[in-house]
């Protein structure tokens, strides 16, 4: 981005740089929670975020597709158990997303 376009208040191309995978509110909540813990299971996220099972499953699959979240299947005793954790890429992109959003909001000028 040139110096001129950076200072141009009518240049909205910065909006295109927003990470759409994280921008969705449910996914932002998921990734925010996973960024503050080492790992968590499905029930923990469901109770903390308040999403339905189907909704959470859908968004987790999306985040896994983007490589932001790792879904690990393990066994506790004889029962299968799913643990979720954020990847380095996810953590980095969350940081960048927050920075972009902050800059964007800070640069907003009320008409």
């Amino acid at each position: 981005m040139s110096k001129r376009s950076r200072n141009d208040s009518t240049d909205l191309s910065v909006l295109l740089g927003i990470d759409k995978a994280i921008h969705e509110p449910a996914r932002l909540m998921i990734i925010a929670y996973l960024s503050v813990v080492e790992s968590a299971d499905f029930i923990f996220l469901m109770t903390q975020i308040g999403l339905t099972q189907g909704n959470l499953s859908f968004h987790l699959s999306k985040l896994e597709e983007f490589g932001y979240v790792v879904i690990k299947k393990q066994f506790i005793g004889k029962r299968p158990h799913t643990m979720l954790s954020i990847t380095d890429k996810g953590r980095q992109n969350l940081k960048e997303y927050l920075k972009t959003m902050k800059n964007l909001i800070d640069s907003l000028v009320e008409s």
Partner: protein
Amino acid sequence: MKLNFKALEKRAYRSFFKDGIYDVFLGLILLSFGLPLILNEFSLLDYVTITMPLLVPIIILAVALLFMIFGKKYITTPRLGTVHFGKSRKRKMMHVKLLLVISVLIGVITFFLSLFKVFPVGGATGIPIPFLIFGIQALLVFSFMAYFMDFTRLYLYALLFAVSLPLTFWLKKNTSLPYPSLLVFSFTAGPILIIGCIVFIRFLTRFPLKKELGVANEQAK
């Protein structure tokens, strides 16, 4: 947009105090200290032998411990799920463990010193030195634990633990109240147990165990 990650982590960690299990556990522990004294006031416990005054707290402590272990495993975890917290939280928990070890050591040393009658008995206040040490130690240890664990109710419990035994002996020495132990422990262990039960019942109604939750963890994707 306000997204405070530190507060989010704290909120996630504190959600595990919503079950009231620690409250009931602490309430039972305090009750285990007071029950032998209360039973003695009603002449239901013979202090001639050491067995019964020791047996009563041990039974209550065992019940409290079993309630906490099985409660967390079979009541809390299926409802709130499992989470492993990050390095900063693990460091805080190490501080809590260290505090508990120091606390137990002080307790054991005080107990043995009192067996050898190192401490003067009562004094002007009527409060035996070991119980005074217990009070100060409970206040400090529980307050620091409350700080490291972000468990706000524990500050109140620290105070209630701290006053329980010293106040009982002070009332015995300086007043003519009929049942000082019953009175003191009703106002110390009682509130902790009541708060614990209310929080526990509220938790059970707020987070009913749904069959699909168990399946959810298995079919997370």
